[in-house]
């Protein structure tokens, strides 16, 4: 009787499906970290632990470094010892406290609105017979890639209290004296955020989740007498909860980090958020890294409970919604079909067509938004950029950077996600938590941590000054998004679909390639494209790591921005836009093809 070799054992054990559900009597440890060791349950794998350790180095390393910096007293580089000076200073600072409140307020408002509208939008797009649903969905994608600054200025043109066209139009009405809109306000910030990113990103992320939902589950609810709203609340939303939560937590993290819109729109009213505080601190003549780091840490601490909650909830409630019997019947909208279409199409217009037109137009304008300038139109912006000798190199670097990042994100991180969801390997829960960290400190703060890490770790040192370091850092930036979204979409896929492949004789890799990958392809396409566009637009993370040899377009754009040459910067933005839109189109086509 021949015995099984240990290798085979290891190979399979890794891949034994697991479920996150346990008996109700579990302690906090189990709730936080999933099931505890029990005989055949969890197991070790050395290569996997090496991977975990490597990722821990890249992820926790910079955070520890930042923690150390936050404890340094005195100016950066001339520290006089360790203490809690920076922490005390931040805690005592009433400005920072009020910024913190504003941050929480703005983030929550944005996320709440975006979540509600986003869920509705993506459900309609994915699950009903909305005409041109795929085109509209793509419209939301494009909105995400538009350069935020130009979009902000476009909205100023509409809602400026003095010359904004919306106000002017309203003032033309007899009973309105002063147009009611003021873009330089709390709601102005919320609005621009919503239309320029928060909402479209939600649509991007959620639509695939709704697609992977067995229509029968919804139908069963409606047959039980539930209205669409009740079905949404009790069945659809709980079922896609893993994805919703990831999108929500990630969105919140992102909104804690963003500062460009707040800087422009918040300054006149002195609306400050944590991220603008950080920005100001590191831009001081003696950069206040300690204090900036402390402020950054605050947002990390703010987000931790959300992350822990997200994981516990998902582990307890993650359920397959796509099984081996799934049906996919779009829900007829009936008489609402065309009104819904009109509504969503106008949203796409507001979020995509209008700002995109403004961005492109802006590159040909002498002064952005000033139609009264003479000449109004010019090609100078284009010639400036195209004649810039660094341009070709930067274009190439950006291409390498963004494709590299998207590749790493899609390939490596989806394997990590798979490991976390479908195996019992020791360390996977730790990995799962760790994956959140890279996005939890603002790029502008964490980039210093990366710098210090990369020059101090001997085997990372050679990457310094090459493209690879930018790819690694940009990929780390995309890590949370990719891993968590892919994880959420894997949770949706019934284990039997994989089992059927393995029963047919497919090994793990074949199964992954032919069954798992196509099923998560729509999500993968989304995160791949988002990773691509983040990498191509990245500034904060890579600012300290790029040199003239590996400088990407986004840094070149920064050089234009340093002179407030918005028009020329927009030209670079258009290149970035064209690249991302093109890649997104290809990704969608491939994603849908893979999915059939």
């Amino acid at each position, binding site marked *: 009787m021949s015995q099984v070799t240990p290798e085979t054992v290891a190979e399979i054990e890794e891949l034994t499906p697991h479920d996150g559900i346990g008996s109700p009597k579990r302690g906090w440890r189990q709730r936080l970290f999933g099931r505890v060791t029990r005989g055949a349950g969890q197991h070790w794998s050395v290569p996997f632990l090496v991977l975990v350790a490597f990722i821990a180095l890249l992820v926790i390393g910079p955070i520890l470094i930042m923690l150390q910096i936050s404890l340094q007293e005195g*100016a*950066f*580089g*001339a*520290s*006089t*010892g360790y203490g809690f000076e920076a922490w005390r200073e931040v805690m005592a600072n009433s*400005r920072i406290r009020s910024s913190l409140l504003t941050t929480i307020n703005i983030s929550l408002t944005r996320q709440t609105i975006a979540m509600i509208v986003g869920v509705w939008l993506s459900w309609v797009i994915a699950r009903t017979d909305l005409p041109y649903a795929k085109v509209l969905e793509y419209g939301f994608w494009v909105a995400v890639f538009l350069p935020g600054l130009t979009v902000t200025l476009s909205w100023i043109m509409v809602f400026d209290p*003095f*010359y904004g066209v919306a106000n002017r139009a309203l003032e033309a009405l007899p009973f309105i004296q002063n147009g009611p809109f003021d873009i330089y306000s709390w709601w102005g910030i919320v609005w621009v955020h919503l239309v320029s990113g928060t909402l479209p990103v939600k649509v991007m992320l959620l639509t695939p989740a709704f697609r992977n939902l067995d229509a029968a589950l919804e139908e069963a609810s409606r047959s039980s007498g539930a209205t669409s709203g009740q079905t949404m609340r009790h069945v659809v939303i709980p079922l896609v909860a893993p994805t919703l939560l990831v999108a929500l937590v990630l969105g919140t993290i992102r909104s804690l980090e963003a500062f460009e819109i707040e*800087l*422009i729109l918040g*300054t*006149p009213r*002195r609306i400050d958020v944590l991220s603008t505080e950080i920005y*100001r601190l*590191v*831009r*001081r*003549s*003696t*950069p206040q*890294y300690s204090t900036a780091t402390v402020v950054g840490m605050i947002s990390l601490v703010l987000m931790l409970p959300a992350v822990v909650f997200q994981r516990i909830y998902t582990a307890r409630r993650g359920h397959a919604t796509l099984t081996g019997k799934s049906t996919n019947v779009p829900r007829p909208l009936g008489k609402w079909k065309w009104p819904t279409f009109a509504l969503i199409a106008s949203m796409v217009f507001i979020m995509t067509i209008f700002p995109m037109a403004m961005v492109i137009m802006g590159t040909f304008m*002498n*002064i*952005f938004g*000033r139609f*009264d*300038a*003479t*000449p109004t139109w010019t090609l100078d912006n284009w010639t400036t950029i195209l004649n*810039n*000798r*660094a341009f070709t190199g930067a274009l190439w670097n950006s291409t390498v950077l963004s494709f590299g990042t998207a590749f790493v994100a899609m390939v490596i991180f989806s394997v990590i996600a798979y490991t976390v969801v479908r195996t019992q390997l020791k360390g996977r829960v730790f990995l799962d938590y760790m994956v959140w960290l890279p996005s939890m400190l603002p790029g502008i703060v964490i980039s*210093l941590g990366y*710098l*210090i890490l990369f*020059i*101090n770790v001997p085997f990372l040192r050679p990457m310094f*000054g090459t493209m690879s370091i930018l790819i690694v850092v940009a990929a780390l930036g995309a890590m949370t998004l990719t891993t968590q979204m892919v994880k959420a979409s894997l949770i949706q896929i019934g284990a039997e679909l994989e089992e059927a492949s393995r029963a047919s004789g497919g090994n793990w890799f074949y199964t992954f390639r032919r069954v798992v990958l196509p099923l998560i392809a729509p999500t993968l396409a989304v995160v791949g494209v988002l990773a691509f566009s983040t990498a191509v637009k990245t500034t904060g993370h890579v*600012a*300290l790591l*790029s*040199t*003239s*040899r590996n*400088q990407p377009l986004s840094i070149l754009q*920064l*050089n*234009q921005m*340093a*002179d*407030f*040459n*918005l028009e020329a910067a927009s030209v670079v933005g258009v290149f970035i836009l064209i690249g991302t839109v093109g890649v997104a189109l290809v990704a969608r086509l491939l994603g849908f093809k893979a999915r059939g």
Partner: protein
Amino acid sequence: GDDAFEEEIGGDTGVTDTDTDTDTDTDTDTDEAAAGTNDLGVAGSWDEIVAAAADEGELVISVHRGSGYEDWCQEVIAAMADYDIDVDCTANSPSDYVGRVIAEQQAGEFLWDLVVAATGNIQASLVPIAGVQELGPWLDVLEDESIREEDNWVGGLVYSDESNRVFLHEYVLSGGAYVNTDLLGEDAQPTDLYDESLQGQIVSRDPTNVNGGSMSLAWFLAQPEFGEESLRELVHDQRMVFVEDPSTMLQWVADGRAAVGFGANVDDLEDLQDAGLAENVIQTDWAQYVVAYGTAVLADNPNPNATAVFLNWHLSQEGQQVWTDVTRFNSSSRRVGVEFPAPDASPQYDDMSQYPPVIGTAEGTESVERVNEIALDG
């Protein structure tokens, strides 16, 4: 305090380690008294230096971020190619750059040869920890003797502070108040700003931000008749409005949304006026300030000979002319004989006392920080 400070630098830079590796036998950074006798790591005669520079074959420069500096990089690359030196010239925002250099140096990595940029951040962060070297000894080895001569530089060989590390080769005149002539007269004076009717009518690039309007407002601090209290009054009681970018500020003034604005440069105004806009806006000759651009050699720089060759070119009249020609619109040079593209918009080098402390010097930094604080209060 001081002891700990010294120790920190010595320890963290790990200079002793590097020394054994790189043949430099003296500690450049810790012992200032010894700096004069410091061996820079350059070869003996100029010819030898040039030869050694070609051997090094490389030079790493950081330049200020913004328009023209990339073009300057191309000029440097071209010029240094004659010496078989391959130049890696990167544009960096100075505030990013200092953090980066400090981190690198603390890890024992000395990657940069030179930095050419607005000196504020370098003065504030790198000079105190000797992240940049004393420049005098470098000037001494240069072939071009004219560089060393005080007379060839307006005001002499001026450094950002007495440690003589950052050589200020250029002063740029910036700032001024921008006045809407329709609302205020062409000869509006600073005292006019305190009129009650101007409450909420004064706009400034956000002075809580170092690079914002704070430098123009620092002018008020430097004037005996104004000073800190009246600046506070101007910012707070007159309900100064802050905006993020200069173009918006100027457009607000031009459109009459504000009567006066701070925090732009004359090129910003010129851009608008070239486009037929903001023709009712003038730049005042008050509230102007000077920003210093400096050249410094980084501690333990990797390519000393190439550095010397570069300095020999850069600080020559020819090099300075190139700098002036390709960098900002209103750039200039302290080098005698260099022609300025916009002489009217350049500082009057012969009478620097009319300006507030030069930004980039120790005092300049301090006054800007004070404006920051005042703006942040309240």
